[in-house]
């Protein structure tokens, strides 16, 4: 197959942008900002080429670019996209320029470093989603931690150092186990193929032949790392700290994209590589997911800090995604995929809006607000719209994801019980409780806090950031086919891989 360089450009563009920044003097703030924005916008444009060139009817990886990287170990630079990764790449390239615009006035010191790290982060994120070699994947996975660590640690709030280190160590802890598992897989592959490989398209053929007992361990080694990232209950406590301390742009990227790497990893690696273990662990992970849905919502309900509330709501929403993944029906997996995008949009919007208001008042305490509907009508509308999207109002995006996940998990043969869905569906009630309660306390009522008087409504730049997100929230809500069609074949393929693992010669030999 001929190499296609498009994805490589996609990875390199932000990186080039980051290094271009080094040549601009620190004082030229707007030159730095425009350079950053230009490169991230260009990246988005390139990703659109990938989207329009993508063949929806095929479940295979496309836009493949592959060359040997480390000879002795058979490590390749190997990138490509399927329906699942394409959607996440688009989400990444879509959100990054928006977050840069949103930081226009909120980041005032060390602008150059900030933009540098944001672009570096974008390269890392795109790299994670398009890598088809575990070694390459691992490098991007780890590399991405560094810019995020600095973004939280330098531009964060009061407790930023604690939060940054906690985020870093927690994630690092998970990925070390994954590294061990990757090495083990490469060695195992050499046993049946005769050579080391970390190429996942080859491992898809080989790994399912691992005996069930070992699969369980491998599944956990990968799964723990991803579960921390999601984060799955009870591995979630790094999240509220990281979110509350991170600057707005960091929170948006963290919630919008980084969390999806966990659920992406489960779909990309755990299910197809370790099908027997996936079936074994499905009820277990689903129970944690359902606990997360309810627990996250209840804890979100009683938060006094808006950002923390949104952070806990992520635990709840990502619980839906994990449930959808492990229910393993076409409806539920498709729902999970679209819900990943949805969460990126609606929670991204919520974080942006909290950022907008925080920039004006320097408080995120719900109790400091009240009655601002009169003062900032467009903000009030935006917060309502984003909340409704998050609540899962039919006609907006959140409903499509949740509905598919719930209806799919209800008829799931793997879970084989109504109770998962019944409990998960209570999340629909709780989401309305915590968001509308916050909304009421912030927006409705009379203005009691005199310092709120004179509050300015969203400016043109801030509106410009919200509008594209709102368009997609509506689009997915009313005509989700545009997006569901992209991942349809991929979702079907992943489910197929779980239920019909490839029968290779190796397995037959083992049996004999």
């Amino acid at each position, binding site marked *: 197959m001929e190499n296609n360089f498009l994805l490589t450009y996609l990875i390199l563009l932000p990186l080039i942008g980051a290094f271009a920044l080094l040549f601009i003097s620190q004082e030229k703030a707007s030159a730095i900002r425009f350079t950053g924005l230009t490169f991230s916008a260009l990246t988005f444009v390139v990703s659109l080429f990938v989207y329009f060139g993508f063949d929806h009817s095929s479940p295979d990886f496309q836009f493949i670019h592959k060359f040997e990287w480390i000879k002795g170990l058979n490590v390749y630079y190997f990138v490509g996209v399927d329906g699942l990764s394409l959607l996440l790449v688009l989400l990444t390239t879509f959100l990054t320029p928006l977050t840069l615009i949103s930081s226009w006035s909120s980041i005032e010191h060390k602008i150059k470093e900030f933009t540098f790290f944001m672009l570096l982060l974008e390269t890392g994120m795109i790299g994670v989603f398009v890598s088809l070699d575990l070694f390459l994947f691992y490098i991007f996975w780890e590399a991405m931690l560094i810019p995020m660590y600095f973004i939280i640690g330098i531009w964060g709030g009061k407790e930023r150092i604690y939060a940054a280190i*906690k985020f870093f*160590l*927690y994630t690092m802890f998970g990925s070390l186990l994954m590294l061990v598992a990757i090495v083990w897989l490469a060695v195992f592959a050499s046993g049946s193929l005769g050579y080391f490989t970390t190429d996942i398209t080859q491992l898809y053929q080989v790994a399912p032949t691992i005996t069930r007992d070992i699969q369980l361990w491998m599944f956990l080694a990968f799964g723990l790392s991803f579960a921390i990232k999601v984060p799955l209950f*009870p591995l*979630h*406590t*790094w999240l509220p700290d990281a979110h509350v301390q991170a600057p707005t742009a960091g929170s948006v990227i963290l919630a919008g994209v980084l969390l999806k790497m966990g659920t992406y990893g489960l779909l990309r690696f755990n299910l197809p590589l370790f099908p027997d273990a996936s079936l074994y662990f499905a009820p277990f992970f689903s129970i944690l997911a359902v606990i997360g849905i309810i*627990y996250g919502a*209840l*804890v979100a*309900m*009683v*938060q006094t800090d808006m950002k923390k509330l949104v952070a806990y709501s992520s635990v709840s929403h990502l619980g839906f995604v994990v449930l959808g993944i492990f229910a393993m*029906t*076409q*409806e539920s997996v*498709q*729902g999970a995929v679209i819900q990943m995008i949805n969460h990126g949009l609606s929670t991204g919007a919520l974080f942006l809006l909290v950022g907008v208001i925080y920039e004006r008042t320097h408080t995120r305490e719900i109790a400091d607000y009240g*009655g601002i*509907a*009169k003062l900032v009508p467009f903000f009030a509308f935006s917060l309502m719209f984003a909340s*409704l999207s998050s609540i899962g*109002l*039919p*006609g907006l995006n959140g*409903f*499509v994801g949740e*509905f*598919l996940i*719930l*209806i*799919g998990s*209800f*008829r799931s043969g793997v879970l084989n019980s109504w109770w998962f*869905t*019944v409990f998960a*569906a*209570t999340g*629909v*009630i709780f989401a*309305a*409780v915590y968001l*509308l*309660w916050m909304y*009421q306390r912030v*927006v*409705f*009522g*009379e203005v009691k806090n005199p310092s709120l008087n004179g509050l300015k409504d969203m400016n043109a730049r801030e509106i410009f950031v919200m509008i594209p997100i709102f368009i997609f929230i509506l689009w997915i809500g*009313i*005509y*989700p*086919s545009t997006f*569901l069609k992209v991942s*349809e074949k991929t979702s079907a393929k992943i489910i197929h891989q779980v239920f019909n693992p490839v029968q290779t010669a190796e397995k037959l030999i083992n049996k004999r």
Partner: protein
Amino acid sequence: MRELIYLTVLLPLAGFLINGIFGSRIKNEKVIGTIGSGVIGISFLIALGAFFETLALPVEQRQLIVTLFTWLDVGGLNVSFAYQVDQLSLVMALIVTGVGFVIHVYSIGYMHGDKGFWRFFAYLNLFIFAMMNLILADNFVLLFLGWEGVGLCSYLLIGFWYDRKFEKSTTSDAAKKAFIVNRIGDFGFLLGMFLIFLTFGSLNFNEVFSKANTFSVSASIYGFITLFLFIGATGKSAQIPLYVWLPDAMAGPTPVSALIHAATMVTAGVYMVARCSVLFASAPQIMTVVAIIGLMTAFFAATIGIVQNDIKKVLAYSTISQLGYMFLAMGVGAFSAGIFHVMTHAFFKALLFLGAGSVIHAMHEEQDIQRYGGLKKYMPQTAITFLIAALAISGIPPLSGFFSKDEILWYSFSNGSFILWLVGVITALMTAFYMFRLYFLTFEGKERFGHDKHPHESPKVMTIPLIILAVLSVIGGFVGIPEVFSGEHGNQFHNWLAPIFKDADRKLMHFGLHSHFEEILLMVISVIGASASILLARYIYLKKPEIASRTASRFKGVYNLLWNKYFIDEIYDAVIVSPTVMISKNVLWKIADNRIIDGTVNGVAKLIEILSATIRKVQTGVAQLYALVMVLGIAAALLWIILSF
């Protein structure tokens, strides 16, 4: 016109977008009001055209589905934005757009001068958009879109005056309560949908209902499906145990109460049960549950209504009570009678609310009926139309309420039991009593308001809608004259809807073993009873007002219980709301999350820190010590090698 039915959905949407986006810049109330009402008026005309076209068609050709585009097509699920024209959806569409239009026009007068005028019309249009989706949907998911959409509009409109106080709390509390209680119902509705999809492999009405006729599905599955759906209905249509949001919903502007919380949205649950009549007919035990819940709601809400003093609150409980009747009808299998009552109720209850709005308007926002009195001479048109509505709801022939209510009562006797009928009739008597208590205290007798109030008749833009609804309240019942009187033609309304309910009727197999004599006898009893109640109300509240207070103080316990609405809100708060918040805050967040989970995480980090701090001490930097350890190590290694030989 039938093919254009989707315009009745899209026109209100267009109205919402125009007023929602440009309303604040248009500013001119006439323009905004005309756009807002105009789109609904045109929708009504389209629905009317579709109705007459359908009427001209033979029965088997009356259903038409207009598909716009696919919404969700994933795995086995395939639902579209598709609108269905049939006998049932047309009746509902006419009610919603017709009564809706009248209320829109009325609102131009009622909301005059409000700074949120444009916002109000935008929300109203959005509501009609959602409601039309609800009733025209050809599948459960689109119905659910409308279902939640009307809930959202209800939320937005209850909290319309978001900075105002309402009773002990605020309008936004009432709005939030409405949305959340509805969501609890929606939870049930969702589960119902999931189970339908699991059982029949589809969520399209035609497919599901035809499979329900042919598939052999166990009664318990039907039981669960219908129970879940009914939970949804109790939320939306304010039935026990989820009715608590509706009285608070009165925090919204009065036209909203008329449109959403009386005439249309709250009947969505009844519509949904009627739409799923085949499923309900397959679950007789749940039908009984529906009947009993309906009747209990009708009865208890009526008892509360007797003692309330807020004009809108009385009407709110009366609405809950009347909705109970509709569910009673559903429960005893009298589906078309239930829908008939939906229609007549829409006329007279919208009229009552708009009349109340007119009074509130005239009395400068005063809502306490103890501070009204003798208003008839100041606002005769409001008084007369209100009187007509009160007579209609009391079931006085030949007004519309008489026909629909008596049909329900008759079926609750003939398909159900004497007890159902008896409680139904007692409730009807209470209804007549409290409606006329309301009427007499408001419009007749002594003036009990201060000189600061200058009551006056409302402008034409408000009174003409009252007159239109009054006419409908009078003649609306004639489309459903029972067979007893109309003879061979039968009940027209019933005949029109019969094809929709024929499968359900076949499953239920009710035999008309009762004589016409019985039917007329029961009718006479209830009419005499209602008339007596009216006279009693007149005697107590007009002639001897002291009786009321004396009775109240003699039965203080009962009175307090009713005045406080059986303390249901307080009980819910103490048993569900407060514990949930308390546990979430003090147990889940502060203990489980902060101490246990995060404590463990930080504990592990701490442990490693302590361990490394201890081990670090080995690194003393003293070379001699390192040398000593090295020598000892070599010695130990040598020893081990020697010993292992």
